[in-house]
């Protein structure tokens, strides 16, 4: 092939995907930024340039700050827990425990079930007095009854539990794949050195899992800003916005309040958060390409 046809072929092959990506990822990201500088058009009032007005309104919007804070707590609650659990699950499933096949199935099922459906089931678990949780804590253990989803201090934690439950099994698969790629010779060598199981994990396995951990970490970060299905079913952001997350608030503002400009400004904040996560991702990709 001559150099010219390489150019043509290369571009032709990439073109269909590139067009779609541009239309539904790059264009909307840029358009969001533009629209965030305009007012929301109404029946008799077309959109006008308002500069930073939407952003000014945002800094004065207590709900925005609360939702942002909630989202950071949500990220902090879901990310380390789901990664640690995923690693633990993978270690167990990879080992020689009894009923490995069942364990793997049990850990993985949440991934397959639609969040929208299981959220309704979790709603039952958290229901006061006769919900499953209360049947255990109150009826069996004699602890005082508690309205889990109806109290601002516990509602976010409840949603974090649901999220960790949902995503840990998915991350487990990645760790499982990574664990199985570790040569058994390493374990034997460690045994000869007299290392304990924990030391072996900490000194040998954990560092080897690092690329996977980074990959999973990035996914967990994205998920913590992307998953709102359970909020729609379980709390609708309540009580008093205690369980509302950024994307849910954007949905509210855009599709209930019909304030698309303000929603655009909020989306820009979300994109900025994700972009900073992206920088992390690129740094990590860099490493992987060298590695190969």
């Amino acid at each position: 092939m001559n150099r010219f046809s390489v150019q043509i072929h290369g571009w032709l092959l990439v073109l269909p995907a590139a067009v779609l990506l541009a239309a539904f990822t790059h264009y909307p990201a840029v358009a969001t930024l533009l629209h965030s500088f305009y007012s929301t058009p109404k029946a008799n009032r077309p959109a006008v340039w308002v500069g930073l007005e939407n952003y000014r309104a945002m800094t004065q919007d207590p709900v925005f700050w609360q939702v942002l804070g909630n989202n950071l707590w949500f990220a902090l609650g879901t990310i380390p827990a789901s990664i640690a659990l995923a690693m633990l699950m993978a270690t167990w499933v990879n080992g020689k425990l009894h009923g490995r096949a069942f364990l793997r199935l049990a850990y993985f099922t949440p991934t397959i079930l639609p969040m929208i459906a299981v959220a309704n089931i979790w709603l039952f678990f958290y229901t006061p007095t006769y919900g499953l949780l209360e049947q255990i804590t109150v009826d069996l253990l004699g602890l005082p009854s508690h309205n889990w989803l109806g109290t601002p201090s516990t509602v976010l934690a409840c949603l974090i539990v649901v999220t960790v439950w949902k995503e840990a099994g998915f991350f487990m698969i990645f760790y499982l794949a990574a664990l199985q790629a570790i040569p058994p010779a390493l374990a034997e060598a460690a045994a000869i050195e007299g290392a304990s199981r924990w030391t072996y994990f900490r000194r040998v396995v954990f560092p080897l899992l690092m690329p996977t951990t980074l990959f999973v970490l990035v996914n967990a970060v994205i998920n913590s800003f992307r998953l709102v299905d359970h909020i729609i079913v379980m709390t609708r952001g309540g009580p008093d916005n205690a369980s509302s997350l950024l994307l849910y608030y954007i949905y509210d503002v855009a599709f209930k309040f019909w304030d698309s400009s303000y929603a655009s400004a909020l989306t820009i904040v979300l994109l900025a958060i994700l972009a900073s996560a992206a920088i992390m991702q690129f740094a990590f990709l860099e490493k992987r390409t060298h590695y190969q």
Partner: protein
Amino acid sequence: MSTRRNPMEPQGLGHALETLGAWVLALLWILPLAYAFWTAFHPPEFATRFDPLAPLSLQNFVNAWNAAPFASYFVNTIILVTMILAAQLVLCTLAAYAFARYAFFGRDVLFMLVLVQLMIMPDVLIVENYRTMAALDLTDTITAIGLPYMASAFGIFLMRQTFKTVPKELDEAARVEGASALQVLLKVYVPLARPVYVAFGLVSVSYHWNNFLWPLIVTNSVGSRPLTVGLQVFSSTDQGIDWSIITAATLMTSAPLLIAFLLFQRQFVQSFMRAGIR
């Protein structure tokens, strides 16, 4: 996998404790599904009570099936996931091939731009993408649900990594025999990347089978709604929650994925491992 004993496996008491821990966690993890089975197969009085003598019943499934047009929702979801997967496989294969083997101008910048989508997923661009769909007159169509996802950065990235591991000699040998670029792609690269395709396909299907927010926004009729949205429309009633019907509907809607996973779980995990997604 090696059949030799791994000396770092837990022994004795440690083994027992870890087995116990693993089982407790597994039981906790499967609890929602177990509850769904319990409630779906028993009369509504037993939805919140666990009595081993409770009579079995299939009535909840009948009620759920009759309460909403699940048949249409099933068809829509199947069309949706098939359409997305087919488009993803074609588009991502072509693009990944170019990124892996063609040194065209602007390749690296373009690849970076592709990777942007790994972070900024269509899921968060609902406001603008809705505007676009309205402008294209595509709202309330299955196409509109699928379109933003058809060019998958994850797919392109994954396949590019795989294609890069294919020895150049194989490529050149095929070309010497007179194969065109597309023939080389189909005869040499695609077969070697089979496990990656399987793994990617499974992730894609389970993701889009369960996706909710975007379909909720962009569809409004039975003709285009997927199962998840249908399920939500049907479970959020003015009159309160009926867990018996909801769990029956949940099992019905996730049955295809659950059964597929039960049957193929070994292959599933192995594809992931061979795909080198780690």
